[in-house]
């Protein structure tokens, strides 16, 4: 290549800032530019994620507008207290992730590993609470795989019976549902609830995987105070997952919290 033929003096200006910086890709002027480019790329990805979830938020908006009353009743079946606990657990995981990125800025690999491990622990706690909720949802016949039964779910919610051991809702409830168009509207709420929360949970699982890879590289001493783009990018991703939940919580859990029979 023609650049190889050039005398060292001719490229001295171009090479400024490159000397002794193995963590700086040659096409960047300095570490700050490299950092900003990585940051911009991650935000580009997050913009597509905003629209990915945006489609579901749009569907939610349209159906909630159309089925206002039933959406409140359906939301009332969810437990806003458990949802609130989960919101706080996720905020804990966000602050530990922020501290993991801070450790990277300080060049402390052990800090990255420890704070990310804490983030995963809080993430698993969040999914544990979610699994507990979903088990109850299956028992009252609103979970996707359990035959949806609106009137049964409503009654079990109000009476606070313990329906966990009934494999099927009694036939009379399905007969009630057939006569009641609201059962289909309630089904739409739970379709949206499970689509949105499971897509959110899937994002968390992906986050765990990426965090484990980043922790491995941190253990290998791959990151420096001037290069930690992967640590910061998974940080941004995790905070984005938190952001989605910040909106899911009021829209799904708090919508019907003022109605009677709420926890």
């Amino acid at each position, binding site marked *: 290549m023609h650049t190889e033929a050039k005398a060292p003096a001719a490229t001295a200006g171009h090479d400024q800032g490159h000397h002794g910086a193995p963590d700086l890709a040659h096409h960047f002027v300095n570490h700050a530019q490299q950092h900003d480019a990585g940051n*911009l790329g991650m935000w580009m990805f997050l913009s597509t994620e905003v629209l990915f979830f945006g489609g579901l938020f749009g569907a939610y908006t349209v159906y909630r507008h159309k089925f206002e009353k039933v959406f409140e009743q359906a939301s009332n079946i969810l437990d806003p207290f458990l949802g609130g606990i989960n919101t706080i657990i996720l905020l804990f995981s966000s602050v530990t992730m922020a501290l993991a990125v801070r450790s990277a800025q300080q060049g402390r690999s052990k800090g990255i590993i420890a704070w990310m491990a804490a983030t995963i622990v809080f993430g698993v706690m969040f999914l544990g609470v979610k699994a507990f909720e979903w088990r109850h949802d299956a028992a009252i016949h609103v979970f996707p795989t359990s035959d949806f039964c609106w009137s049964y779910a409503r009654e079990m919610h109000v009476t606070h019976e313990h329906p966990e051991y009934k494999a099927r809702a009694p036939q009379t409830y399905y007969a009630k549902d057939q006569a009641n168009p609201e059962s289909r509207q309630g089904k739409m709420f739970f379709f949206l609830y499970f689509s949105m929360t499971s897509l959110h949970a899937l994002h968390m699982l992906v986050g765990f995987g990426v965090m484990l890879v980043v922790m491995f590289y941190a253990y290998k001493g791959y990151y420096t105070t001037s290069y930690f783009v992967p640590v910061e990018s998974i940080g941004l991703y995790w905070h984005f997952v938190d952001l989605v939940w910040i909106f899911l919580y009021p829209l799904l859990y708090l919508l019907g919290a003022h109605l009677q029979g709420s926890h």
Partner: protein
Amino acid sequence: MSAHEHDGMHPPAPVWMYVSNFLVLVVLTIVTYFVATLNLGAFSTPIALGIAVVKAALVVLFFMHVYESSPLTKVVIFCSLFILTVLLTFFMVDYTTRNLNVLPPDEVPVTVPKKAA
């Protein structure tokens, strides 16, 4: 002065920034929970979403470091939110001004399990 500072990298933010941001977010979560249990009619949703927007802004600015991001990153975030607004606004313009019966047909029968007890 450490190596990254004269290379234009931002120095790490103090721990108290993250901790205080976290505490404010927790307080807002508790507030939104208790406000939602009150029967405020048409005001509940704007209040709940208003609190959510404040929380989201705190996460974006401080946890995601956007307060010190490059202007280009800020433009990307703005565009992303703008397009989301266009999406949601035109959804609603479409569905509220047209009387199309495209939302779930009421004729679809309720699924009754075959071996119901």
